[in-house]
């Protein structure tokens, strides 16, 4: 790419963010609801500061709690959905057993499960499971509430499982037979043929699932009864009219979401290198 084209590309990409900043600046003048860009920037530049007017921890701590919850829920979803998806994709019996339930469950918004998950798990966390009444001493571990992890798992599970199923089903039998004739065991067929063949679809599922997990966590944290995390900070900032914290949280949510998607996009590119580019 030559220099001129690069400049045009960067400028084009900057048009919308700059327009948003201008509108934001104009909207914040004299407003008590829309904070100034400077006030939000101040919060972002002091991520460890405890918000004086809020019953919430710092922005950095909130982000850490949200990320930790997503890592647990999304990790659990990936660990369960990939093998189940491959089973659905390669076995008629597993498909007949699970496909109708999965088809019905996937259309239900994961947010609808939040009350159910709170009833099922209450305020329990790994800390309450291990340390009981002393759980509060293990703050970060206590923030990984089972209810929230379950809701994230539900949100991320179906796109990952369905993509893994489609990927596994798409692996042609001739590849499997080529490996079998060369002496491959069932485990080798799985590791050397089905998994690499389905990898691009699996990573696409992880990208979609990761995006949903990150959206669901914010909704789950805004839900009454939850404490800690960026969603909780938005809800609290709204109640206390400290809108600069709400705006700063939204920007951090966007940045972390972008980083998560970027990492998964890199992974997708890596595992899809072998696919010829469609023109």
């Amino acid at each position: 790419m030559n220099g001129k084209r690069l400049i045009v590309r960067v400028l084009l990409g900057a048009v919308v963010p700059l327009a948003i900043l201008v509108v934001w600046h104009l909207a914040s003048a004299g407003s008590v609801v829309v904070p100034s860009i400077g006030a939000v920037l101040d919060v972002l530049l002091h991520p460890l500061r405890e918000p004086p007017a809020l019953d919430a921890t710092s922005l950095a701590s909130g982000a850490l709690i949200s990320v930790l919850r997503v890592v647990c829920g999304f990790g659990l979803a990936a660990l369960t959905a990939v093998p189940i998806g491959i089973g659905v994709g390669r076995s008629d019996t597993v498909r007949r057993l699970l496909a109708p339930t999965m088809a019905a469950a996937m259309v239900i918004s994961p947010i609808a499960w939040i009350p159910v998950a709170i009833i099922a798990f209450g305020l329990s966390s790994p800390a309450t499971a291990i340390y009981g009444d002393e759980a509060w001493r293990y703050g970060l571990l206590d923030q990984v509430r089972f209810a929230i992890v379950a809701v994230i798992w539900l949100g991320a599970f179906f796109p990952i499982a369905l993509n893994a199923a489609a990927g596994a089903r798409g692996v042609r039998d001739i590849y499997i037979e080529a490996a079998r004739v060369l002496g491959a065991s069932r485990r080798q067929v799985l590791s050397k043929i089905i998994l690499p063949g389905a990898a691009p679809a699996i990573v696409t599922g992880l990208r979609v699932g990761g995006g949903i997990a990150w959206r669901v966590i914010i909704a789950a944290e805004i839900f009454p009864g939850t404490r800690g995390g960026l969603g909780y900070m938005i809800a609290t900032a709204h109640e206390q009219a400290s809108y600069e914290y709400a705006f700063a949280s939204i920007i951090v949510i966007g940045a972390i979401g972008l980083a998560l998607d970027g990492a998964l996009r890199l992974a997708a590119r890596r595992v899809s290198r072998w696919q010829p580019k469609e023109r």
Partner: protein
Amino acid sequence: MAGDAGVIRFEAVSKRYQTPARGEVWALRHLDLLCPAEQLTCVLGPSGCGKTTLLRLAAGLEPPTAGRIGVDGQTVTGPQPGVGLVSQEGALLPWRRVIDDVALGLEISGVSRAERRARGRQAIARVHLPPTVERSLPHELSGGMRQRVALARALCPGPRILLMDEPFASVDEPTRHHLQNELLQVWQTDGQTILFVTHNVEEAVYLADRLIVMTFGRTVADLPVPLPRPRDRLAPAFVDTLLAVRRTFTKHALAGPAAD
């Protein structure tokens, strides 16, 4: 089956499929076939006559409905060591680089990476591919190159038996002639037993020691090809044999299935 080393033997083999559209279909019917050790036997037949099924059964990818198949002295109950298969499409793994695909059989057997590389390179050289292709992906290769890689992959573990399912059907004629000569070179050096399936009469006459004509799931003719090697496609003896085989093939291919 003592003394059957290197031999492929079909004894009254039948294979039935249940299809949604056509119901019960017999791909093979009471088929007897013998491929002697170290010979190149061609099975010649029209599309749909059961040639591919024959190879799949010999490779142990499917069980017969009835009868018995012996390969290299063993009754076939599944894929067995020492047998290589090259299919019409090549079945190269799209995500593997050529060197890794060629050495797949060695990797499955737990051979070290260094030895896999060395033997993979040897196999690539044997099928006359330049060393530069070893880092290529299958979609970056021409049809002829892909079939050479498929042959290299089958040869790499050093099989005694080679099953070939119309491996050169999808390449142009000059490339097909090159590939046939390369196969003959490998076979004359290694002495594998080759069961080569094709619907191309000229290819069968050029390659085979023995030629078996198959229609409607049965063998209908067993013809020796007593032409000296290397064979000249324009020599009168070759043309005479070709015409004779073509007459036999056409007669049987046009006739309906024999009653049971």
